[in-house]
């Protein structure tokens, strides 16, 4: 928790929108999708499930051993393989507001 708020603080201090990939997010962090750099199929699939630029998502779980991650998007929880998750670029909420 403290770590998370620290990162947010850092972002605020820097005052820039800090983009990062979904895998780098903390557990419980709410972020908004900036871009999905995945292949055609995965991108379509994600878009169908609501993962499109501008959507707010919350990262809820990290699978052990660098496994997939779980996010909440539009009220449903979605598991995304780590390889794909690292191609989803997000911005944390605070920096978006700035």
């Amino acid at each position, binding site marked *: 928790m403290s770590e998370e708020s620290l990162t947010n603080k850092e972002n605020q201090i820097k005052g820039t929108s800090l983009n990062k990939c979904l895998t780098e997010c903390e557990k419980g962090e709410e972020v908004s999708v900036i871009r*999905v750099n*995945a292949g*055609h*199929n*995965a*991108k*379509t*699939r*994600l*878009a*169908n*499930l*609501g993962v*499109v*630029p*501008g*959507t707010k998502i919350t990262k809820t*779980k990290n*699978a*052990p*051993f*660098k*496994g*997939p991650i*779980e996010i909440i*998007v*539009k*009220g*449903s*929880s*979605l*598991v*995304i*393989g*780590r*390889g*794909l998750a690292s191609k989803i670029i997000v911005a944390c909420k605070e920096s978006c507001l700035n």
Partner: protein
Amino acid sequence: MSCHSPNNKSRSELKFKDTINIALAGNPNVGKSVIFNQLTGLSQTIGNWPGKTVERMEGQLEFLGYHFNIVDLPGIYSLSTFSLEEIVSREYVVSEEVDIIINVIDATNLERNLFFTFQLLELQVPMILAINQMDLLRKRNIDLDFKELEKIFKLPVLPVVAVHGTGVHQLLEEAIELVVYRHPHHHYNYRRRSSRESKHHGHHYYRVEHIHDKSKSKESMKKNFEFPELNQVKSFGKEVELKILNLIEKISEYQPFLSSHNYPSRFLAIKLLENDNEIIKIFETSEEGKSIVQLSKKYREELENLHGEDIHTIISLEIYSNIKKIIDLVLITKLKKSARKKTLIDFFDHLTTHSIFGYLVLIGILFGIYFFTFSIGDFFASLIDNTFIVWSNIIYAGFSENNVWVKIFWDGGVGGFFGAVGGVLVYVIPFFFVIEILQDSGYLPRAAFLMDRIMHSLGVHGKTIIPMILGFGCNVAACAGCRIMETEREKKISVALTSIVPCAATMTVVLGLVGRYLGFYWILILFMINLSVIFIVGRLLNKILPGQCTELIMEMHEYRVPNYKVIFKQTWVRSKEFIFKAMPIMLLLGIILEILLIFNALEPVNVILSPITVFWLGLPAITGVFLIYGILRKELTLVLLSILANSLNTSLLVLLTPVQMIVFSLVTMLYIPCFATIILIAKQTNWKYAAQISLLEIGLALLIGGVINFGFLIFTSF
């Protein structure tokens, strides 16, 4: 394959009976199958879509004087070409066979569910929106404005609580209303009837009097059905919409083409813009069509350059923004949403996805499946086997022991039947039962979540672990479970891996031979070997099969208490499928084997196989026949071995050396999937692939068996 083909129920026959054909469509896990079960009861059939490996669930019922034929479409998120399920669904929905769609929507997940609804709307087929799980939504102090929803969609929108059956039959009434009585040029007016508000189950409505009024034939009405004009709701942002309108115009000009398919031109326009292969294929049959494809390509590139996003993202964004507008209108929050309390469900969720406990639970469940299937199956198996032995004695008391016909009929036919029931069915039924519980409770995606990383090294994503877990109980059922894989490639790898997982029957052999005489550590070693074979096959197929490993994208549903009705019905429906599809083939095989046995045709088999069994594997010659029998029922290898030992008045320890035991068990584990499994592999993929997998496994089993045999020989000679 005796597929249940949907087309063959001649259309003319249907006209007379006033059949209404309903397609149930919706996202996965929204309660579609619960509604399906509530409506159709046990009158369900599982088949395949013609020429496809996608499962087709169909059921019938009579209601208010009409015959309803309901098809439960696979749960999908979109009508693109991501998976076979999506292609099958959209082709079916626009076909002549469907009169009306019931789109099942999860109220607790409205936004995502409406995305699919918007895609269905483009198909312009009469539709009813069934908003399920309203009870859950209301518990969260949220309600929906159904009046407003009907105003927006100009289609019937009904609240449903599927698990309690509330509102389910109203869907059918509404279907009759919409398909039969609706005036073709009369938009759906919002009318409220008392019947809907009072959620009773009685069916005496004012409409009963219409039932015999068949002057308005359904057929003529359906053709004239005018889908409500929903431009207000559906239209996209200006840039996109203008391009789509242009494309629609071009498509409409292209008359000869329009008559040859059922898709509305707006759907075609959107799909062309989205670069949908299947639709482009339809267009590319003519020059004129090709020019439309070219135009759509130009438009797509323009849009993608303008937005800096790919076309799917652009269109999804448009749809989601339309949905957002609707949600803002219909969502009624009664109180301030309170923060969700931590519940038992959250605890289970946390536990089963935990980095340590999660795996422990997974292992526990594996043992649980095995124990449950095995203990129940074993109980009935011995009961059935004993019955057969008792009856056999009675039969043979009446006939001469050498009567060939009695042998073929009794040992082959009846014996084969008892073998199939006592050897396979009694394991398969409890097993289907456990699967349904695991599936309905929502555990399985958690296992996929935990195992995704590991499965990636085998060329598949985490979902494959689901059928593989099931494989510990019974490969047959588990291979049927491989239908959840999205792509053909994943299906192929999954069935192969699943078929190598040691099932309950294989375990009896390993436990009864190696476990009993050599000890626990040898079992572990055999398991390690089995696991490495799974690994090797996975790596191999990953290399051989064209295409790439896709990433896991999976919805993880909340845990819920399994619905016992659904579980029992699904267990029965699946067992029924097995009984009528796989068992006849097994019976036939039993008779053939018996005939071969009578004419002593198997002795040559032992001789023919002896280079493999005796020389390469170092086993006694007689095991050749046992291994052949094992294809039918894996545990038969051990059963026959014990019978042989009994008849020779020795123990297995005398009959086989420890090395032979290990080799024999290992070969039994690996050499070939049992016959029922092979049939199901073929059903999921094709016969050629099933044969290839069988050969691959035989090869691997022989290789490993031989290596162990010679390894020991060399080791002991030093």
